[in-house]
């Protein structure tokens, strides 16, 4: 029947205002660490080491960010950003490509070993990289892939989540489409490229958002295999900027780096919010 935009039940007057006030308080509390990091990235070192530090931004924005981006501590942050970008893109694109292919094979063909491979992929769902770090490290070292992009990317490409997501989706593609393609004389690869891939666009985009953030936020793996600062990713590189021993950390530069480290994933999440939420809900099913 008629829509009820206000479908009310106690959503008016003072209660509504209280709800807004509580919500704003909640957002402020959640946001506070990010705000503080931003403030710290715009003031001078002396202002920070003499607590309490200011609560509003200072005038050192350009100086601190320039220092971080082009000099950094061990290595310019710009280099680490580039490494992170390559790693995140590599993981997202790599996972999507191999998953599309294998899901297509599993759904649209009957071939010897199909069930075996299916379970083989399925089991990898259960193995976070943290569980097998030592032997995986040895494999990468054996291949001479330490301090390389391929070493950063490949071990994290192999996960079953994306394959399962695509499999679920392919199963919902009407059989008539494959029949029509066969009647039209299209082979399997033609069908894949002309029909299946275009139909999967939204799923691919949603998954891309999730995987990009997954790749960008990796910490343990780059920490293990990038001993050369030139290969550090930004998320793991921040920790490397802290001095060992009793020296005082260069907080403004570290905080500027933290802000830089969160900007790309935040942009992706906020600008592709709808896709992101959809990808999140789908991939956790």
């Amino acid at each position, binding site marked *: 029947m008629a829509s009820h*935009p*206000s*479908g009310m039940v106690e*959503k008016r007057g003072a209660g509504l205002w209280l709800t807004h006030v*509580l*919500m704003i308080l*909640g957002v402020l509390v*959640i946001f506070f*660490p990010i705000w*503080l990091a931003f403030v*710290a990235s715009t003031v001078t070192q002396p202002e920070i*080491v003499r*607590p*309490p*530090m200011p609560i509003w931004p200072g005038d050192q924005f350009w100086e601190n960010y320039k220092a971080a981006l082009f000099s950094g501590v061990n290595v310019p942050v710009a280099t680490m950003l580039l490494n992170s970008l390559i790693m995140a893109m590599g993981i997202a694109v790599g996972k999507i*490509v*191999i998953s599309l*292919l*294998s899901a297509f*094979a*599993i*759904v*649209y*063909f*009957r*071939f*010897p070993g199909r069930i075996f491979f299916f379970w*083989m*992929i399925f089991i990898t769902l259960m*193995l*976070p990289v*943290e*569980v*097998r770090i*030592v*032997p*995986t490290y040895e*494999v990468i070292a054996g291949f001479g892939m330490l301090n390389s992009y391929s070493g950063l990317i490949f071990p994290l*490409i*192999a996960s079953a989540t994306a394959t399962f997501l695509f499999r679920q989706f392919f*199963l919902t593609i009407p*059989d008539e489409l*494959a029949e029509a393609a066969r009647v039209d004389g299209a082979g*399997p690869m033609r*069908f894949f490229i002309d029909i299946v891939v275009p139909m999967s666009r939204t799923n691919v985009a949603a998954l891309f958002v999730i995987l990009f953030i997954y790749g*960008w*936020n*990796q*910490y343990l793996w780059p*920490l293990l295999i990038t001993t050369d600062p030139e290969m550090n990713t930004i998320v*793991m590189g921040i*920790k490397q900027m802290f001095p060992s021993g009793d020296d005082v950390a260069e*907080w403004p530069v*570290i905080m500027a780096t*933290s802000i830089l480290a*969160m900007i790309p994933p*935040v942009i992706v*999440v*906020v600008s592709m919010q709808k896709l992101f939420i959809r990808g999140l*809900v789908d991939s956790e099913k």
Partner: protein
Amino acid sequence: MEKRVTFRGWMLPLLLIAPQVFISAVFFFYPAGQAVWQSLFIPDPFGLSTQFVGMGNFEYLFGDRHYRASFYTTALFSILVTLASMIPALFLAVLADRLIKGSGVYRTLLIWPYAVAPAVAGVLWLFMFNTRVGVVSWYLGQLGYDWNHVLNGSEAMGLVVVASAWGRISYNFLFFFAALQAVPRSVIEAAAIDGARFWRRFFTIVLPLLSPTTFFLLVVNVVYSFFETFGVIHTITSGGPQQATTILVYKVYSDGFVGQDLGSSSAQSVVLLLVVGLLTVLQFKFIEKRVHY
């Protein structure tokens, strides 16, 4: 479920599936097998040869006071992280669900922390509670409370819990919010007509209807706190003080890479593997359960 219409041929599908199978084999099955294999041996002190010890590494592991302590630490840590991330998230989701206008704006702001890597979150919280420059620790000092997570194990635990839970609030919020939006309006209205006021409706109608989501989030958050919080712990406490925040994953790392004790580290990996398996089974049970309503 299977497709009725398929294509013929077996070369092409094998070719298509090969990349994933290859990568899984090289980077999953081989290392996982290695972990299991190595867990049965101990290397000699010079790393030149190994000796088969069967269950020896495991016996040693569970006989180790530190390892048992790490189990306890992990359990405590994951319970706290799960609660600290789910309860505020549910609260915020209930608030957002009550608002028709503006909930989109709040949601946009609330999902930010999800995008922040755990390791970066660790740095942010470390900065706020730093014993020398931290704003929060300074104000606590003004109030007469001497905050020092570098020396105090409980404070260290509290800090890594909060830093780990922080980004998860966003994640849980999104799921709770979606679940709340999916509760049929008319069921809530029926309860209102039946005389249930807001909190009564919440506890007797809404919360039971959210239970599939709640259960799912419980499992997912436990998995998160087990495996994905490494970055937080490494940046804030490095497992200290006196191993007060050494969770199992951190111990695999510190024993394997820092301590170079491959046998023990591998045995720990195998134990973790079993834990993951258990959690996965739980998750599947949940999927069956979800069909219920």
